[in-house]
């Protein structure tokens, strides 16, 4: 398994990270390692530059997004947040999800972009709540069981957001 995304950017392995530091250190690494800096270099160095720049991109994208960051932190603990054998979700969240799906369908049939925008805002709000909870579970209490459930919720919320955006796109076209 690839390790060291946090170390690469000089960050502690925590859910709460300073996004500004992440971004500026990402840019610093790319400034050193990007293939554009090695256009006239030999093949061995080109390969090394390509590998490092690729790793930096992957690490940056993973740490930037809360759901992926949480999933990655759990993986460092040996926990697969999303796996075939690990799909249990609390009943109330499942009910909540079904309600969201129905609301999307209704808005879709009514070509109602305003409702979809409102739903998107609701997803963002849900996401914020889960982010706060994840910081608490992972950083303060090392409660990985609770963190796994919150991560799964966050991943679902991201999926719902993507679907809402797709529907908006369909209506707009």
């Amino acid at each position: 398994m690839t390790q060291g995304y946090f170390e690469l950017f000089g960050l502690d392995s925590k859910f709460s990270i300073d996004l500004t530091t992440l971004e500026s250190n990402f840019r610093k690494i790319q400034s050193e390692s990007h293939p554009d800096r090695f256009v006239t270099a030999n093949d061995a160095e080109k390969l090394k530059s390509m590998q490092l720049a690729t790793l930096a991109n992957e690490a940056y994208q993973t740490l930037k997004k809360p759901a992926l960051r949480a999933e990655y932190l759990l993986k460092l603990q040996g926990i697969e947040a999303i796996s075939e054998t690990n799909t249990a979700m609390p009943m109330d969240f499942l009910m909540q999800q079904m309600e969201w799906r129905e609301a999307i369908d209704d808005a879709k049939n009514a070509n109602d972009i305003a409702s979809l925008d409102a739903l998107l805002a609701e997803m963002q709000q849900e996401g914020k709540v889960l982010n706060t909870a994840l910081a608490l579970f992972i950083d303060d209490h090392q409660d990985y069981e609770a963190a796994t459930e919150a991560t799964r919720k966050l991943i679902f919320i991201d999926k719902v957001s993507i679907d809402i955006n797709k529907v908006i796109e369909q209506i707009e076209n």
Partner: protein
Amino acid sequence: MALLQISEPGMSAAPHQHKLAVGIDLGTTNSLVATVRSGLSSVLSDEHGHALLPSVVHYLKDGSVDVGFSAQKQQNLDPHNTILSVKRFMGRGLKDIDVSMSPYHFVETTSTEANKSTANQMVQIETRAGIKSPVEISSEILKTLKIRAEKSLGGELVGAVITVPAYFDDAQRQATKDAARLAGINVLRLLNEPTAAAVAYGLDNASEGVYVIYDLGGGTFDISILKLSKGVFEVLATNGDSALGGDDFDQRIFCWILESSKLSPRNAYDTRLLLSKAREAKEWLTEHAEANISCLLSDGEFVNLTLSTDQFITLTANLVQKTLSPTRKALRDAGLTIEEINGIVMVGGATRMPQIRKTVAEYFKQTPLTNLDPDKVVALGAAIQANVLAGNKSDADLLLLDVIPLSLGLETFGGLAEKVIHRNSTLPVARAQEFTTYKDGQTAMSIHVVQGERELVSDCRSLARFELRGIPPMVAGAARIRVTFTVDADGLLSVSARETSSNVEANITVKPSYGLSEDEITSMLKASFNSAEADKKARMLAEARVDAGAIIEAVRAALAADSALISEQEKLAIEAEIQRLSAIKETQDADEIHQAVEALNQATEAFAAARMDASISRAFAGKDLDSINL
């Protein structure tokens, strides 16, 4: 060389001469070449002072090839042998093209041994000079620009940055790179047009913040959203339509002429004539309220019409609207609202149309920026990037982080496309996905690589098919086939597949086919190089000596600075190679000098790697790169 770049990224420790590098905007309608001289990016003009080179190639009766204005004059007289807007056909098959709108004789590529494995067959055009692929036709335009640049700069180019629409897929990018190769141009990088424009614009205005580049060219539309910060240009999202451009506005006027004059479908001559009249009218309407269209057709019929601005706006309203859908998608992908946009930069000749500017201003609720010439800004930006890549710029403060415009995936069971790399991933990017066999004892697996956003494979662009054979027979679902996609900084894809328990492996660089085999391309290249063989030898020797001198200096400087990073023994080995190269450098044999340079390069490989690690570690004091698994 390599070592120098490690000491100071993008900068050489030893003084050396300015390397001639250019930026080329290979456009649908016009092409340009630009370079950085005395720190300023400028477009190179031909001997008549023309900056724009019409992207028109004429195959003459005497076997010669003409490119540019004189070729353009032949478009109505010799329409079958005068190729316009060839960029629209790059990496495209017959089914992708609206054949009825072009006067050419299209032919489908015949399957040869070399190309039958590839899924894409590029369309070709029959001319009096034979059947030509879009790659060959484009290479004529590139050759003309190369000659112009070498004449005006007085030396051979070390390389060029060539721009492509951000929304070009892998086949279109490969085709562009091959056209450059055929023209004898060393491609330093393929650069996305809106990113190039952002470089030219951003550096001129010292801008910071989030900018939208709205680029409507002759045949393509791109929208890119970039974050500019301290010389780093990070593309957040890109979208577009690689078959929408100024040409389509001409088509609308053309159709309107046919309808208004109740004309029947026309021959090639009339089609061309009316299209060029349509284009003149479009350009005239940028600054006038109405345009007169009059011409005499081949059957003696006379066309005389007046097109008003209002009519033109109505005719093209849905084309203008069509640009907003990709714009919305890009904003959504970037997770931004229009209130968060600091500025909109207009690129491409077609953005001169008042209705475009008005629509964009209304959509973004701010006036778009038009202070750089929309025709030149892409070439100017490409030249700046070329100058940096060639190693001329001493302060390497410019870095472009671009993205892949369309998702890449594989065909899975039931004709579904499984995405492996998602659109708008920052380049370079590599990602692996595991698949398994679905039958007991299955020993081969067919891998179909596709590009696009749709769920069905049939709705995506097919890039390549290849087979992984020799999988040891196992029960269904037991084999582990790991398919790795790698997309480099040019946005070009290579794919490898491996069965992990047995290590059976297959690699492919995805290449579209033009009916030209690799051998044919090589021999065409050779033919163009055979002339001036003697000159070439002398030049090669001189270059080899300069290279050798530069690397010796560089290695010495590196040793002086960082010899602590290696053992005494390694240091002695490197010094021995320096000695040897110094002696060989004075002989007459360029090949031997190259070999000795290569030997020195090899001897310093470990040292170079150590210096690179050290240099990055220095940027993050206390962090050890060796602890990171690549």
